[in-house]
C-alpha cells in the first residue's frame, strides 16, 4: 500500500513539474478550505483581470492538517509560491528556517499599522514576512428569533448570561449552547480564549504572562476555566462526541440558541441559517466594567522563499496589501476584518455588530499564540486538551491550570 502510494506520489510530482512550465501560475497554500469558492469566483478573477499573464490557483488543505502538510511540503520543496501565514511563532519559525521571504520592502506594507504587522515580524520587528490580511473577533452568535420567542435579550453581564441560558434550558425547545468537546479546539478557542480576556484583562494579563509576572494558576487565568466548567449543563446531549461541524449544524438548523463563535463563522452561517442572528461580546462581571475582546490577528500571506515566480508573487502580494483587496475580501468574507489602515465599508449587519465592539472594548489577541507556544509541551495544544477536559468535568479548573503552568514552566525561562 505504502509502496504504490509513494510511486504514485513520485509520478504525479514529475508530471506536475512538467506541466507547470509555461504561463506564470501562482499556487496559494491555505487552510481556509471553506473559502475555496470565494477565492475562485471573486478574488482571483479580480486579480487576474488586472494582471494578465499571471494565473492564480488556490489550493487549500484541512485546517487541522495545514501546518503539518505545509511544513512537509516546504521541506520537500514542493510547496506553492504563496503561503497563507498563521500568526506568530508558526510563521516566524518558517521565516527563520528560510522558507518565507522577507517582505519588509514591499510597497503595500505601508498600508498596515505596526500592531497589524506584529504577528508576522521577527521579535525585534526588523523584518516583516507576511502581508496581513485579516483578524477575527470572538463572541457569541445567537438565534434572534428564538430570543424573541422566549422574550430574552442579549446578556451583557455574567449573571445575565447564565440567566439567559437557564431560561432557554427551562423552556426546553432549544439546546441552550451549541458546542462539543470532540475536536477540542473549540473549547480552547471559542471557550477559554473567548471569555478569558475579561478575566485576565486583555493585553495587560497577556503581557504579564509573557514577562513572567503572572502565572496561569493566578485567579485571572483560572476563572475562565471555572466558567467553562459551568457550561457543561447547557450543552446538548452527548456533547462529548459532538464535532465542530455538528455544532455549526445544530445552530444553523435552529436547534441551538447560542453559539460560542469566532467571527469567521458569519459567512457560513449567513448561507445556512434561515433565521435572524445577533451577536454579543463575552459578558463582563458587572455592568459598566471595561470589556475585553479577542481581536486576533489571524491570517496573512507570505511568499515561499524558493518560489521560482518571485516577481509575480510580489505583484500579487502588493495587490493583497491594497485597499481594493481589503474591500473585496472583507465583503466576500464578512467576519474576516481587514487589518488595512484604510477603513473598509462592510454591508453585513452581523459583521458590523462584531466590528463595533472594537469601539467600546479593549482588543487583545489569543493568549497562547505569541512566544508561549514555542516549546514542548506546546501551551496552545495543551490548552485545547485542558479546556475540553474542564468542560467535560474530567479535570477541575484548578488542576487544569496547575498542569498548564507546570508545562509552561518546564521550558519557558521567565515562568521558572
Amino acid at each position, binding site marked *: 500500500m505504502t509502496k504504490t502510494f509513494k510511486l504514485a506520489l513520485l509520478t504525479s510530482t514529475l508530471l506536475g513539474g512538467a506541466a507547470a512550465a509555461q504561463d506564470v501560475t501562482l499556487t496559494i497554500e491555505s487552510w481556509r478550505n471553506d473559502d475555496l469558492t470565494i477565492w475562485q469566483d471573486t478574488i482571483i478573477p479580480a486579480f487576474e483581470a488586472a494582471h494578465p499573464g499571471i494565473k492564480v490557483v488556490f489550493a487549500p488543505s484541512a485546517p487541522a492538517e495545514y501546518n503539518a502538510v505545509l511544513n512537509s511540503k516546504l521541506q520537500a520543496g514542493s510547496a506553492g509560491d504563496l503561503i497563507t501565514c498563521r500568526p506568530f511563532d508558526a510563521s516566524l519559525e518558517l521565516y527563520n528556517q528560510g522558507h518565507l521571504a522577507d517582505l519588509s520592502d514591499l510597497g503595500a506594507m505601508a498600508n498596515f499599522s505596526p500592531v497589524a504587522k506584529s504577528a508576522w515580524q521577527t521579535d525585534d520587528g526588523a523584518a516583516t514576512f507576511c502581508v496581513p490580511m485579516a483578524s477575527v473577533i470572538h463572541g457569541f452568535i445567537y438565534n434572534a428569533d428564538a430570543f424573541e420567542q422566549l422574550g430574552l435579550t442579549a446578556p451583557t453581564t455574567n449573571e445575565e448570561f447564565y440567566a439567559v441560558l437557564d431560561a432557554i434550558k427551562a423552556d426546553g425547545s432549544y439546546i441552550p449552547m451549541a458546542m*462539543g468537546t470532540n475536536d477540542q479546539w473549540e473549547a480552547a478557542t471559542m471557550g477559554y480564549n473567548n471569555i478569558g480576556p475579561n478575566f485576565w484583562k486583555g493585553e495587560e494579563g497577556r503581557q504579564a504572562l509573557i514577562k513572567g509576572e503572572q502565572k496561569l494558576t493566578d485567579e485571572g487565568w483560572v476563572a475562565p476555566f471555572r466558567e467553562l466548567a459551568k457550561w457543561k449543563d447547557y450543552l446538548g446531549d452527548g456533547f462529548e462526541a459532538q464535532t465542530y461541524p455538528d455544532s455549526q449544524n445544530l445552530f444553523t438548523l435552529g436547534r441551538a440558541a447560542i453559539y460560542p463563535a469566532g467571527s469567521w463563522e458569519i459567512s457560513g452561517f449567513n448561507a445556512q441559517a434561515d433565521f435572524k442572528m445577533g451577536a454579543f461580546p463575552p459578558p463582563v462581571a458587572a455592568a459598566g466594567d471595561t470589556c475585553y475582546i479577542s481581536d486576533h490577528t489571524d491570517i496573512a500571506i507570505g511568499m515561499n522563499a524558493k518560489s521560482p515566480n518571485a516577481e509575480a508573487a510580489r505583484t500579487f502580494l502588493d495587490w493583497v496589501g491594497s485597499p481594493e483587496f481589503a474591500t473585496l475580501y472583507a465583503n466576500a468574507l464578512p467576519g474576516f476584518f481587514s487589518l488595512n489602515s484604510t477603513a473598509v465599508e462592510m454591508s453585513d449587519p452581523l459583521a458590523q455588530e462584531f466590528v463595533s465592539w472594537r469601539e467600546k472594548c479593549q482588543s487583545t489577541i489569543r493568549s497562547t499564540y505569541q512566544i508561549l507556544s514555542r516549546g514542548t509541551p506546546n501551551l496552545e495544544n495543551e490548552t485545547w486538551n485542558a479546556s475540553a477536559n474542564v468542560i467535560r468535568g474530567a479535570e477541575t479548573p484548578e488542576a487544569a491550570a496547575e498542569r498548564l503552568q507546570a508545562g509552561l514552566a518546564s521550558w519557558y525561562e521567565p515562568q521558572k
Partner: protein
Amino acid sequence: MASRKPVRWHIAVFLAPAVLVYTALMIIPLFGTLAQSLMNKDATGERVFVGLQNFARLFGDAIWSDAFWNALANNTWFFVIHMLVQNPIGIALAAILSTPKLRMAAFYRTAIFIPTILSFVIVGFVWKLILSPIWGIAPGMLDAVGLKFLFAPWLGREETALTTLALVSVWQFVGIPMMLIYAALLSIPDEVIEAAEMDGITGWSQFWKIKLPLILPSIGIISILTFVGNFNAFDLIYVAQGALAGPDFSTDILGTFLYRTFFGFQLQLGDPYMGSAIAGSMFGIILVGVCIYLFGIQTRLRRYQF
C-alpha cells in the same frame, strides 16, 4: 574434466526489480529513520550526532515518557481487543461457513469481507455518523427496542472511546481471519474428517479435537498479522478523533503519537528527530513481538503432513 556450472543470470534478473523497489522505498527509508533517531539539532540548527539522547529524553523526561507509555498502553489494549474479539469471531465465522449444510455461504462470505476493502476514511466517518448522538442512527435503533438508556456518546467518553474504536476496527477487519481460517479449514483432507467420524468424533468435539489443531499454524499467522497491523495502526484513530486522539489522549496510540511529534500539530512544530526516535521504538516493539512469536511459538507448533 570438471563441468563448470553456468552462471544463472536469470535469478538475479528476476529478483532485481523487487529488490530495487523494496530497497529504495522500504529499506533505505527504514535505516534513514533509524539513523535520524540518533541525530538532533545543535544550537545553530545544524544536524549533529547525539547518540541515544533522543531515546533518553523519550523515556526519561516525564512529558515524553508519560505520553509514550500512555500510547503504548492504549495500543496494547487495542491489540488485546482484536485478539479477544476479532480472531475468535473470525474463526467461528469460518467454522460456520465451512459447514456444508449452510445455504448462501458465498453471500455471507462476501458480505462479511466487504468492509475490509473499504478505506479507513469511509469506515471512520460512517461509524462516527452512526454513533453520533445528534444525527446518528444508533440512538434511534436502541430506542426502537427500548434500550435507549444504553446509549452514550461512546466516542466522546474517556472510558469507552478506545474500546469503541477497537470494535469498529474489528468490524472492518474480521473478514481477514475468517478468510484465512476458511481456506485452512477447506484444505483439511476429507479422509481425516471421515476417519474421525468412523471413530465417533463428530460435531463440536470434531472441531476442537481434529480441525482446531490442524488450523493452529494459520491462527498463529493471523495473530502475528494482527499484532503488526495494530501496532502500526493510525488511520482509524486519526480519522475519527483527530491527531490529538481525544478525549484527553485516551485513544492515543503509537501511530498518532508519532504523527503529532514528527509532523507537528497546530502551533506545535514538527520534530523529525524525536519523531524518528518514536518510530525507532515502534520498530523495536514490533521486532521484539515478531521474534517472540517466531522463536517462542512458531517453532513449537506441531505441523501435520497429509
